[in-house]
């Protein structure tokens, strides 16, 4: 009877007990938005404040490095007589008299170096070179590594084993030592090539130092990428097999494609993004040892290492490029981490 009263108090109507239609039933199912991999990834990425800030910083640095120098009043190799060793925002005597006579002189935001070159533009161009080194080296690594890895994974068996043994061995070569060795020795043959053989003169434009760096990176640094791509391809082959076994029809190339995209591209983007700062790091290291890009072209590493001698009098000359390097590396690292979390959770360590 008690139950009964309860029921009455609920004020139910007989119509409530009519069967619900299929539409009504489905109406209450809150369909969780079936978001695509990319959409989902981008949503996660956008939520990652650190990664987004890093992205903004990277874009700002790109503008600073690639766009502003083209209309900056000074050039990186321009030596301004009488304006040597200026401090931050300082003008030389000559410039001051010209200002007094009504002329407008663009300020040296970071002063000048011992040859009278404006430090600000040198930092910009240095950033450009460092970024280029990072990006080009990473692109080379991406191409070589993913091709090699894909071939090994695709053929499998003996070919795979031989190729991966090679990778294992290259992996254990102490890279920095070889890089130093190569940078020391490659200059001669490259210089010879540039000077003597037509069609190789561009080496001089890019600079022997830079070319050696690229050669060195592409010889040694692709192995990590190759390993990752290989395992992805192997996993994909497995997928293919599973799909076939499930008798979903072998014609369903779209699934494979989709898996290829989702599985591999995410990994490749993440790995490449994280490769950029590592290459910049190595370049700055080589520059410090005097093995980086050749003068007068500045890289952030060479700017910083040139400033070390004068650190007691001009600490800002070291700090400015050092902060810049750190900022670039930091933001690429954070962006890479964010991309990994967003698109490739399984890569996490």
């Amino acid at each position, binding site marked *: 009877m008690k139950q009964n009263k309860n029921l009455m108090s609920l004020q139910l109507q007989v119509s409530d007990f009519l069967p619900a239609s299929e539409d009504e039933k489905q109406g209450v199912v809150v369909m969780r938005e079936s978001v695509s991999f990319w959409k989902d990834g981008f949503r996660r990425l956008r939520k990652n404040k650190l990664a987004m800030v890093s992205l903004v910083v990277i874009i700002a640095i790109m503008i600073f490095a690639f766009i502003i120098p083209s209309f900056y009043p000074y050039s990186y190799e321009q030596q301004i007589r009488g304006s040597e060793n200026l401090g931050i925002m300082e003008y030389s005597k000559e410039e001051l008299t010209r200002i007094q006579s009504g002329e407008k002189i663009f300020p040296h935001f970071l002063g000048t170096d011992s040859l009278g070159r404006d430090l600000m533009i040198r930092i910009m161009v240095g950033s450009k070179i460092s970024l280029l080194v990072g990006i080009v080296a990473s692109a080379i690594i991406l191409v070589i590594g993913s091709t090699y890895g894909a071939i090994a994974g695709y053929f499998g068996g003996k070919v795979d084993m031989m190729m991966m*043994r090679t990778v*294992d*061995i290259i992996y*254990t*070569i*102490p*890279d*920095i*030592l*070889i890089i*130093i*060795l*190569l940078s*020391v*020795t*490659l200059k*001669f*043959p490259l210089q*010879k090539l540039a000077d003597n053989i037509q069609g190789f003169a561009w080496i001089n434009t890019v600079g022997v130092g830079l070319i050696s760096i690229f050669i060195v990176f592409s010889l040694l640094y692709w192995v990590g990428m190759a390993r990752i791509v290989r395992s992805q391809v192997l996993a994909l082959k497995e997928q293919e097999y599973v799909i076939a076994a499930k008798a979903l029809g072998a014609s369903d190339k779209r699934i494979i494609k989709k898996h290829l995209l989702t599985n591999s591209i995410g990994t490749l983007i993440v790995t490449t993004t994280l490769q950029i*700062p590592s290459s910049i*790091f190595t370049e*700055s*290291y080589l520059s*410090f*040892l*005097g*093995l980086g890009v050749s003068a007068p072209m500045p890289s952030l*590493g060479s700017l*910083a*290492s040139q400033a*070390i001698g004068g*650190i*007691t009098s001009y*600490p800002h000359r*070291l*700090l400015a490029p*050092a902060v810049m*390097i*750190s*900022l670039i*590396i*930091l933001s690429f*690292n*954070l962006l890479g981490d964010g991309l990994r979390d967003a698109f490739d959770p399984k890569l*996490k*360590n």
Partner: protein
Amino acid sequence: MSRYIIKRVISAIITLFLVATLTFFLMYLVPGGPFLAEKAPSPQTMKALEEKYGLDQPVGVQYTNYMKRLLKGDLGTSLKMRGQEVNHIIKTRFPISAKLGLCAVILAVSVGLPIGSFAALKRGKFLDRLIMFFSTLGMAVPGFVVATVLMYFFGVKLRVLPTFGLTSPLHYILPVIALAFYPTAYISRLMRSSMLDIIGQDYMRTAKAKGVSQFKSLFKHALRNAILPVVTYLGPMLASILTGSFIVEKVFTIPGLGNQFIGSITDRDYPLIMGTTIFLAFLLITMNVLVDIAYKIIDPRIKME
């Protein structure tokens, strides 16, 4: 296990062989051969060198001779240091670098492990974020900047620590910090993620279900598992400390092998570059093999295989 060791040693020997070969042929690319580049030595030296190394002979013969000498452990003779044996130079310089490096390893491990574990336990909290911020930053600052800035602030500005040479324990402080900077940051990040991984493992839940306290479950059950990935970093860490030592020894004017190596690069002292490279490569490769084997021994799961 013994199969693994044999496999690992064989591949190390192949790697070493490759490095030695590469070194030889790269040096051969230098115009005039490794011994005659740039400033020519005196005629007597030249003659002695030519005799000793048979520079007039074909590449193949030179290569075999070179490899034979290497096998005997003879790394050649320095050009600039007036006939000093590379072996001798390494013998006097390397202990200095090794001492410095060892201190840095100890510092990096003893700071990185606790900091990383602590961050993992305080996951998402303020202290975790702070630690992660600094370690991420620590990994973004190039080593020579760290070294120079340390030298500038503590040595030049504050004048509290010596910045030159390695004559007293105080002299060690700055170079060791500079050397340990990157590995410390790396280890703390590695330890954190490894610890987080372990904390989520089923056996941690088992420990809790047994009534083990959080403190003990961390120290007994988590730490030993979480440390395993850090052991694998020991190899790369040695490489990183070694390359760091080139810079740190130069900045702090320490007469170690690193400084010597940089000097030989600036001087284009090719035999010395060649010899040092091979020695350091040998060192790194050997250490890597040892670390890999040690890892397999520490991890009981692998012992039986």
